């Protein structure tokens, strides 16, 4: 009889843990499926997988971030804007400490808390929203996002700066004729980009370059190329060094790495380490106290509770995974009238790791052209890295 009781208790214990783990893993599975579909270039399937998003889902902000990125890659700029604006609004609402949403994390784990997004992810969400507005040629709305980027960067509370987002904010101001605000942003990052100096005008001046550009004849225009480089599949450990921009076979210039998102994530984690450590200690102390109290009443139940509480202890590793790893910008002189370019991503040994053709759009008076693209390495089909305008 006693044996049967223990068996049924163990079954109940396994059942409870399974339900808890399954409920936590359910949304993770949808996200993982969608991410895999995204990297395979199956954007429609990925969007379908991420739809609908229940309003009370703790990963709602993460779902919206990921879906926004898939939509942008699928050239659904309006849809990506809507998702990211919704995510920004939802994340802002989560700044309030929720007794029902956040308190369980003191007993279970941080994974049960609603996902708010790390500060750098929330800034990059604004940056990518601005890029979608730019792709739609809605410059004033891009500048609205730029103001949000600047506000968040100015109030970042010790979290790392993001030169790429700053440059994009400056570019938005420049496009809208607010050259003073643009200069202020460019000046903030003048010496933060490796191998280049950012001038007050936004010109990216290479300090050293292996590239010798051919002189172009006639009137000179500018191309600003915003490049996201993702983890390069089938490329071994190769890290991209730069992206070269060609007109046919003639090299026009190269990109510079502005932001390494991996480093942003690392610096953010380090900043939050102390806070998370203190919370984990508090949680473990609370769990120990609960188990200790239960031991006084029922040792078997205390054992079940112990397995349950420590079985649910897990690290919160949620993050916006469809973001590229490296963010590059090129601002180069181009011959007037040139609209299509060939991009070649190279590693430190000069080996080609990705190549694609991109189209550009005119910014206002046609003197500056803008191209937005994403290079994801040889594991991607050619069309996946491009964005149509």
């Amino acid at each position, binding site marked *: 009889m006693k044996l049967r009781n223990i068996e049924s208790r163990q079954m109940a214990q396994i059942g409870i843990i399974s339900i808890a783990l399954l409920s936590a893993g359910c949304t993770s599975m949808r996200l993982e499926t969608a991410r895999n579909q995204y990297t395979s270039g199956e954007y429609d399937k990925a969007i379908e997988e991420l739809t609908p998003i229940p309003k009370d889902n703790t990963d709602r902000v993460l779902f919206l971030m990921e879906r926004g990125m898939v939509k942008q890659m699928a050239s659904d700029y309006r849809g990506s804007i809507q998702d990211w604006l919704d995510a920004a609004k939802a994340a802002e609402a989560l700044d309030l400490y929720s*007794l029902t949403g956040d308190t369980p994390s003191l007993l279970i784990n941080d994974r049960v808390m609603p996902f708010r997004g790390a500060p750098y992810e929330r800034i990059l969400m604004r940056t990518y929203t601005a890029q979608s507005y730019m792709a739609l040629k809605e410059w004033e709305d891009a500048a609205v996002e730029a103001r949000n980027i600047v506000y968040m960067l100015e109030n970042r509370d010790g979290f790392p700066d993001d030169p790429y987002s700053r440059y994009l904010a400056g570019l938005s101001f420049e496009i809208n004729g607010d050259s003073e605000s643009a200069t202020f942003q460019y000046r903030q990052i003048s010496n933060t980009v490796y191998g280049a100096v950012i001038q007050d005008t936004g010109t990216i001046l290479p300090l050293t370059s292996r590239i010798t550009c051919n002189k172009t004849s006639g009137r000179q225009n500018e191309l600003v190329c915003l490049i996201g480089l993702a983890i390069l599949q089938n490329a071994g450990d190769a890290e991209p060094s730069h992206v070269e921009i060609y007109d046919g076979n003639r090299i026009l210039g190269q990109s510079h790495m502005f932001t390494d998102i991996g480093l942003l994530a690392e610096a953010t984690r380090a900043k939050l380490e102390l806070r998370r450590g203190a919370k984990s200690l508090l949680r473990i102390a609370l769990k120990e106290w609960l188990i200790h109290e239960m031991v006084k009443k029922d040792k078997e139940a205390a054992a079940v509770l112990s397995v349950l509480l420590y079985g649910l202890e897990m690290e919160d590793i949620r993050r916006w995974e469809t973001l590229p790893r490296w963010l590059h910008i090129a601002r180069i002189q181009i011959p007037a009238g040139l609209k299509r370019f060939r991009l070649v991503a190279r590693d430190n040994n000069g080996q080609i790791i990705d190549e694609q053709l991109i189209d550009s759009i005119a910014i206002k008076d046609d003197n500056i052209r803008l191209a937005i693209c994403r290079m994801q390495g040889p594991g991607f089909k050619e069309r996946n890295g491009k964005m149509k305008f």
Partner: protein
Amino acid sequence: MKNDNTMLKGEGNMKKLATIAVIVLTSILMSGCAAFRYSVGEKDPGQAGTLTDTYDQKDLLNWGNQMANALSTSQLPVQTAGKPILVALGIENRTMSHIDTRAISDTITSALLNNGKVQLVNADVRDRLLKEQGYQMQNCTAETRVNIGRQLGARYMLTGSLVEITSESGKEVRVSKKRDVYYQLSVNITDLETGLVSVNKQIDRLRRSSSPIIGW
């Protein structure tokens, strides 16, 4: 006998508890009814209270009317025969929110038209001309706006900008977070013949909100 008394006493306690439970339940239901009921009611948009510290319907109406009144009291320097023709060429959104500044511009021009001070160029005609020339209103440079205004036969051009400054209370031990949201709406009327700004008006508004840092 003692047991009977205890039982009677127990029954009495139970009755008391049941009465208290009924009273508590009734009061919860009565007070909670409204919380669970969906209701809709008509409100005067100008008089309705504000629910947010950012731009809302009250700002749209107030700014539109205040600006139209302020502009109406200003004499335009050269009075042409009849009412002067005005073209509205957009209010630039320089805020941190995606505000429909065209609605502000429309509210101002509607009020100006109702005041009988000006004649307005039809917005559809204006937009068609902009489209024909390959422009979007928000992408126009100042020079383009002047050219478009002249081509539309207008003597005056209404432009402006909306600026926002937001500041939050710093880090401190607190139970609520304070936030100030300041807007400045600036509207210009430019004489397209001289290129000079004839009238310039500004409206400021500041709202301070206090939100709890702990909620359900």
